[in-house]
C-alpha cells in the first residue's frame, strides 16, 4: 500500500463515518431552506432582496464549512485517541503523518460535499430568480473551501495535544481572531509602544488571516474580484495549511499513545 493509498483509506473512513452524522443533514436542510425561500425576501427588504439572497447563501456556505471544520476536525482525531482505536490503526503499516493527513482530507471531503449541496441549491434558485447562472459565486466558494482547509488543519493541530472540546473552543477562537487579523497592522501602526507593535505584527502573520478568504461583500455586490487575488489567497491557504499540518505531525509523532 502506498502512502497516498493509506491517506485515502483513512479519509474514506472519516467520510463514511460522518455520513451517519445527523446534525450535518439538519444543517444542510436548514441552509437549503434559507436559500430555497429566497424569492420571498422582497417582503422584508426594500429593493435589495437579490443581495439578501446572495449574502444569505454565501453566509450559509461559510457557516457550513466552519461548523464542519471546527466540530468534525476537532472530533475526529480526538475521538480516535480517546477510544483507543488509533492504536489498532497505527499497528498496521500506517504512519502517524498519513493518519493525520487522512483525517484532514476526510474532514475536508465532508465539508466539500456539504458546500456543494448548498451551492448547487443556491445556483438553481438564482437561475430561476434572475434567469442566469451566477458564475461569480465560484470565486467566493473556492476561497471558502481553502478557508475551511486552513480551519480543519488548525483544529487537527490543536487535537494533537488538547482534549476534543477544548480544541473545538480554541479553534473557534482562532476563527474569530483570524477574521479580525486584518486589524492588527492598524494596531501596530498606531501603537507608540515598541513591544505592542512587534506583538501585533507577529500575531498578524501567525494567526491565520481569514479576512483574505472573505470576499463575500464584494461578490454580493457583483464587484469583480481579480483572479490574481484569488490565486495568491489560495497559495496563502496552501502554505499555511502545510505549515500547520507539519507542526501537528511533529507534535503527534512525539505523543505517547
Amino acid at each position: 500500500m502506498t502512502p497516498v493509498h493509506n491517506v485515502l483509506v483513512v479519509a474514506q473512513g472519516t467520510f463514511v463515518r460522518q455520513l451517519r452524522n445527523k446534525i450535518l443533514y439538519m444543517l444542510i436542510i436548514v441552509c437549503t431552506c434559507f436559500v430555497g425561500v429566497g424569492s420571498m425576501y422582497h417582503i422584508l427588504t426594500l429593493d435589495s432582496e437579490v443581495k439578501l439572497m446572495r449574502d444569505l447563501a454565501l453566509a450559509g456556505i461559510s457557516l457550513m464549512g466552519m461548523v464542519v471544520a471546527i466540530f468534525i476536525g476537532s472530533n475526529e482525531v480526538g475521538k480516535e485517541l480517546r477510544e483507543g482505536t488509533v492504536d489498532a490503526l497505527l499497528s498496521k503499516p500506517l504512519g502517524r503523518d498519513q493518519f493525520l493527513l487522512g483525517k484532514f482530507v476526510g474532514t475536508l471531503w465532508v465539508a466539500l460535499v456539504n458546500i456543494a449541496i448548498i451551492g448547487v441549491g443556491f445556483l438553481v434558485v438564482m437561475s430561476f430568480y434572475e434567469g442566469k447562472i451566477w458564475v461569480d459565486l465560484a470565486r467566493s466558494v473556492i476561497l471558502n473551501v481553502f478557508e475551511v482547509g486552513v480551519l480543519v488543519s488548525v483544529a487537527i493541530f490543536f487535537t494533537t495535544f488538547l482534549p476534543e472540546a477544548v480544541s473545538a473552543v480554541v479553534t473557534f477562537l482562532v476563527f474569530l481572531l483570524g477574521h479580525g487579523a486584518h486589524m492588527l497592522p492598524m494596531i501596530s501602526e498606531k501603537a507608540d509602544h515598541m513591544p505592542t507593535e512587534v506583538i501585533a505584527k507577529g500575531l498578524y502573520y501567525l494567526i491565520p488571516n481569514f479576512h483574505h478568504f472573505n470576499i463575500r461583500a464584494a461578490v454580493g455586490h457583483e464587484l469583480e474580484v481579480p483572479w490574481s487575488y484569488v490565486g495568491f489567497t489560495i497559495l496563502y491557504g496552501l502554505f499555511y495549511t502545510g505549515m500547520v499540518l507539519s507542526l501537528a505531525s511533529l507534535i503527534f509523532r512525539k505523543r505517547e499513545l
Partner: protein
Amino acid sequence: MSGGTKETVSGLVLAGILFVGSVYMSNRATKIRDAEDLLNPQLLHTPMAGFEPLAADIQWIQLVQFMGMGYSSGKKEVYVDRLYRRFDRLTSLDPYFTIAYHYGTLFLSVEAPEKALSIVDRGLDYIPREELDWKLPFYGAFISYQYCEGDERYAKSLKYLDAAMDHEGYPLYVPTFRAMIVERKDGPAGALNEWYKLYQNCDPSDKTFLRGNVERVASEVLKNPESPEAKQKAEEVLKELNKGGEEAPPKKRATRRNVSET
C-alpha cells in the same frame, strides 16, 4: 544526530519554509486587495467574523421597519438620531450598501441635513465607482443648496454637482441646476458661458428651453454690464443665437467634460 532529532529538525525547517511562504502570499494578497479597492478593511468598524454582509442585511431589514414606523410615536430628534446611528452602523458593516446611502440621505435630508450630507460624503468615499451613479451626489447638491448658508451653500452644491456629472447618464436638470447655481454665485456674466455651452450641446428637444435661458442671461448682462468684455461676450452670444443657433446640427448630450471647458 539521531533519527528522531533529524525528523524534528526537518519538520521544523519545513514548517518554517511554509510559514515564510504564507507570509509572502499574505502580503501579495493584501497588496492586490488594497490596489483593487476590495472592501478596505479599515472601513469595517464592527467585525462579525466574516458575516458582515449578512449582518448588514439584517440591519437593513430592521431599518426598513424603523423607517416605516416614522416618528409619530416619539420625539422627532430622538427618532432622527436613532435613524442616523442605524445607517451609520449599517454602512460600517457593509460600506458598499448603495441603496442604504440613498434612502439614508433622503430620509434625513429634511430633519437633519448635516447628517444626510455626512451619509452622502461617506457614500462618495466608499461606494466603488462602478456602483455609484449621479443620484447620490445630486442629492448632496440639492440638500446643500436648500439647507447650507453663506458661501458654503454654493461651494458645496457645486462640489457635489461636479461629482454627479462625473458619472454617465445624468439628466439635463443636473447641468441646468449647476448653471443656475453659478448664476446665483457669480452673477449673469459668470453664468453666460455655462448656459450657452449647455445650449450648444443639448438635444434638439431641449433647445427652446435653454435658448430662453441664454437670452435671459445675456440680456441681464447687457442691462448691467460688469465689464466691457462681459458686454461684448453677451452681444456675441445673442448674435450667434440670432444667426441660426436653432438650425445648428445637434451635438452630443452635455457631459462633464464639455461643461467644465466653459
